[in-house]
């Protein structure tokens, strides 16, 4: 064999071997050799609305209606999460989820009728029926259960809803206490469920029988690092806030009044990195106000769907009016071309 021929044979042989090895490798794992992104982005549904069917619509206490909304393969949630309900009139209201997080085929919420409210609760009570379709967005969690050595829950009336799943999810042996207050026993929902919990840890205070709850006694001997969760009327939350001892972390869930109607109000936006504050007039947008200060900033569609103007939110409650962001993205960012404040100033990282 001449040296030249030998080289050709060697190269051809090597090529055949490489080809066979490659085939075998691809045969065992067809998508070799590209790695995959651990947390894939593409193909995840955006925060579009889900249309659910009202499967249960029942009075569970004076002025309180429980709704069970059925669907299939619903997005998971953690205790403390709430749902946006898009009511038939177009009003959007937030209600805490109070069912079982393991149940992926229905969401349960409870709402109290607010007589002098702006109509959201009245609609839930009077216009929704078993069989009605209702659109929901979420769930989202602004009131998550944190890891702590001990817990104290102070709730008033319908404020029990986000706390109920939390209590059920606490591991056996956790040190917790619940103070559940209300005007009358008949007006307090889920009394039966709280009765099923460890009774030594639960104090029920009905104002017409027992007067106001004794918060001072509750906070007298708090262990260091106790997490205090409070959800209820403003008066109760202010009272808890005033008494909370140093060394305890307070978590509040307000009954948000929901989105204001079409007439927007002016508000302030602080641009922390550039050290400026701008005022967004009613009828204008954050984008317009920011562009007056930072003309180079990015934007495109100006209608809340392209995502180009998305900015990180450091502080403030945002009312999201875009069609794009996922719930996780909404937790810390906003599209400044359409979204506004829910009340109070907003701080952006720009």
């Amino acid at each position: 064999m001449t040296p030249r021929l030998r080289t050709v044979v060697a190269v051809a042989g090597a090529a055949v071997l490489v080809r066979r090895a490659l085939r075998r490798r691809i045969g065992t794992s067809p998508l070799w050799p590209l790695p995959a992104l651990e947390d894939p982005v593409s193909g995840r549904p955006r925060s579009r609305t889900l249309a659910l069917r009202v499967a249960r619509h029942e009075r569970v206490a004076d002025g309180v209606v429980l709704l069970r909304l059925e669907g299939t393969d619903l997005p998971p949630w953690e205790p403390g999460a709430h749902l946006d309900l898009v009511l038939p009139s177009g009003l959007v209201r937030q209600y805490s989820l109070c069912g079982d997080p393991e149940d992926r085929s229905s969401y349960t919420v409870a709402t109290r009728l607010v007589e002098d409210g702006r109509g959201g609760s009245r609609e839930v009570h009077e216009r929704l029926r078993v069989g009605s379709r209702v659109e929901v967005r979420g769930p989202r969690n602004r009131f998550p259960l944190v890891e702590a050595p001990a817990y104290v829950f102070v709730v008033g009336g319908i404020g029990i809803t986000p706390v109920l799943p939390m209590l059920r999810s606490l591991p056996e042996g956790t040190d917790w206490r619940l103070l559940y207050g209300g005007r009358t026993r008949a007006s307090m929902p889920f009394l039966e469920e709280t009765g099923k919990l460890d009774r030594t840890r639960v104090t029920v205070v009905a104002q017409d029988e027992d007067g106001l709850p004794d918060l001072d006694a509750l906070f007298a001997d708090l262990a260091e690092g106790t997490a205090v969760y409070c959800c209820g009327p403003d008066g109760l939350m202010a009272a808890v806030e005033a008494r909370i001892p140093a060394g305890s972390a307070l978590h509040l869930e307000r009954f948000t009044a929901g989105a204001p109607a079409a007439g927007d109000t002016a508000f302030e936006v602080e641009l922390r990195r550039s050290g400026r504050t701008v005022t967004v007039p009613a009828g204008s947008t954050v984008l317009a106000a920011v562009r007056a200060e930072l003309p180079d900033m990015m934007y495109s569609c100006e209608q809340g769907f392209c995502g180009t103007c998305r900015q990180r939110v450091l502080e403030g409650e945002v009312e999201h009016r875009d069609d794009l962001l996922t719930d996780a993205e909404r937790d810390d960012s906003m599209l400044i071309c359409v979204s506004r404040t829910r009340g109070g100033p907003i701080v952006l990282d720009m």
Partner: protein
Amino acid sequence: MSNTQARPPRPVESERTALKARKVSFSWQDTPLHWVPDDPFATHTINVLHLLLPAGERWFVHVYRQALPLIRDERLREDVIGFIGQEATHSQAHDEVLPHLAELGLDPTPYTAQVDWLFEKLLGDRTLPPGRARRWWLLERVALIAAIEHYTAFLGDWILNADELDRRGADPVMLDLLRWHGAEEVEHRSVAFDLFQHVDGSYRRRARTWATAFTALVFLWQRGARFFMENDPTLLDGRASLKDFYTGGKRGVLPPTGDLLKSVPRYLSRSYHPSQEGSTEQAAAYLASSPAATAAAAAEREAGAA
């Protein structure tokens, strides 16, 4: 290069148009798995777009956000802003097809997770020192996008003229998505190239990134078509082959292989400019009649009137 001055790219001015994103939406519930009837191979070969575009176009937007401060021309800046909005919308529109495919029993996640990795990690922002290295990586990606856009414009022009798909009764919603997208790609076909010329314009980089982009596209495309064919729950022994691609092109349900090859030397010509190919007029005509685009325009008018 010695002769870059002698044969500069020659844009066709009449092909320019103002760019704006359209807020389209598509309803997928009636689209069948094989939306080109009885032609799974053509269906899946075109479906590869849904695998690549969500991550790819998100990446375009990500890169262009960084390139924007380098632009010293007001008109180009406006074009790039319009381009970004359109690309962001394209990415979302294709992304919405993926859950529908999963519902039909063809879960694309194993593949799209890799495409996500490719664009988010491999081609993402690297930890580079600010200055030359970081600028080099940005310019390299801007040039890659210009090369890829050569092919998106080619495909856009093809789908606008692919009458054979209508004759075979292809799903109208899918055709509208592809043609709306294709028309906007034709509309903005010059932006990526103009941006590249504006910030760099080196012929050597153009040729190098073309080679990378072309190889990557061929690799990802054949792989995506094989992935779909092998995982299609209705096919017993689904296979993708180059021969099927060639015959699909002959029948007019896929881009003709010959045209694809002929577009290579055109991009590498020194006087190439994207406005020399395709027709803005045809794109505008389609957008004026597209169900999704006209619905978006009507919704916008309504919002403006409110």
